[in-house]
């Protein structure tokens, strides 16, 4: 069975390392915060100027001066800190944030990512994505394996304007976990009951398959 969005987030949560600073993008990445494994301490950074982001506020306690990068109302946890946008991107560009989880429209086998523009159709802007992908040590993409038209978002080369080059380290989709290696995508895990053949036929890039491919443990 292919994973749903929450299960993709749950699988990515297993990648979180103890005592690390993490930036979560909009969409599926935001859900990762719901699945932090026990014993793992994480501080979430939001690029609009907060470190130590907490859950959504209780009804009636929303504060217009306390939002995340998706403009959603949030709370802060003990030890949180607030800062301006230049300081925020100093944390990001200066590689003080260890992990970035982002959504994407396309990822290519050399680790390029496209997620900010569909020429002539959708131009919303890159927000902080270009700064994040240019600098983060570890970038994991969370996305569906195919787009609404059923076409693979995993490609040999991106067709859309790219956000960054050679930056994605891992991709977790509803079908598979892929690692970006120097030789291309390596299939690390498959979704429960999804066969390797099904993944190959849903993917428009070569996959490196090394022996038995285990099922994801969700």
């Amino acid at each position, binding site marked *: 069975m292919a994973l749903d969005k929450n299960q993709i987030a749950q699988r990515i949560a297993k990648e979180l390392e103890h005592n690390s600073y993490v930036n979560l993008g909009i969409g599926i990445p935001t859900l990762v915060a719901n699945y932090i494994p026990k014993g793992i301490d994480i501080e979430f950074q939001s690029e609009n100027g907060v470190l130590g982001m907490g859950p959504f506020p209780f009804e009636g306690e929303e504060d217009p001066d306390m939002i995340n990068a998706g403009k959603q109302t949030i709370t802060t946890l003990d030890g949180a800190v607030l800062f301006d946008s*230049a300081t925020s991107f100093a944390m990001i560009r200066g590689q003080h944030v260890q992990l970035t989880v982002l959504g994407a429209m396309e990822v290519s086998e050399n680790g390029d990512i496209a997620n900010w523009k569909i020429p002539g159709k959708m*131009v919303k802007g890159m927000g902080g994505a270009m700064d994040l992908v240019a600098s983060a040590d570890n970038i994991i993409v969370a996305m569906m394996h195919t787009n609404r038209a059923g076409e693979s978002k995993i490609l040999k080369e991106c067709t859309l304007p790219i956000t960054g080059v050679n930056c994605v380290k891992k991709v977790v989709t509803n079908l598979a976990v892929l690692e970006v290696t120097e030789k291309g995508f390596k299939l690390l895990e498959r979704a429960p009951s999804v066969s390797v053949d099904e993944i190959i036929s849903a993917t428009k890039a070569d996959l490196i398959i090394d022996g038995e491919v285990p099922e994801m443990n969700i």
Partner: protein
Amino acid sequence: MINKVVDNIEKALEGVENNMTFMVGGFGLSGIPENAIAALSKMDVFGLTCISNNAGVDDFGLGLLLKRKQIKKMISSYVGENAEFERQMLSGELKVDLIPQGTLAERCRAGGAGIPAFFTPAGYGTEVAEGKEVREYKGKPHILETALNADFAFVKAWKGDTAGNLIFKGTARNFNPLMAMAGKITVAEVEELVPAGELDPNQIHTPGIFVQRILQGEKYEKRIEQKTTRKRN
């Protein structure tokens, strides 16, 4: 003490002219200078270039100036919240420079700090890098970005004193301190204006030297763009 107080928004906007470049603080609708935007949207001032992370929504924030077609060019990082904006951009009525958010912040900071340009890795290999000088540092390619300045910077703070010192609240800080530094005339509107001496100098975020005019703001709506809550157990 140098007194920076102006009595009303009309005085704060004295000198605003057609075809000027403005910086406008805020992230989404959080921390935007509501009083300045509302007053500008009633003035006959057109052909503006606005440097602001976002472009408001259709009926609030910079959306008010877009609706009256007062803006000829926007310099932003993300504009996805505004249908009128998207329409004007796709039809070519509005010029738009989309730039990475960290680059935008740093270009404002650099403009205020007397640094004319800097190299950043953000945007290398993308459309953003087209026509820009590339240099390798520590084995990694970087692109040259230039500083931004503005004729006016409009910022919003939580508290301010008569000397122009500012304290921000929560994530409403965002671009405000950086833009305050980069305006030829920086207009700060505050929720609470206090006499100089009342704010603890240790706690001030923006020193008054960056602020030319300060005023007590009024009628803040502080609209929430995405209200998200959780249930009490």
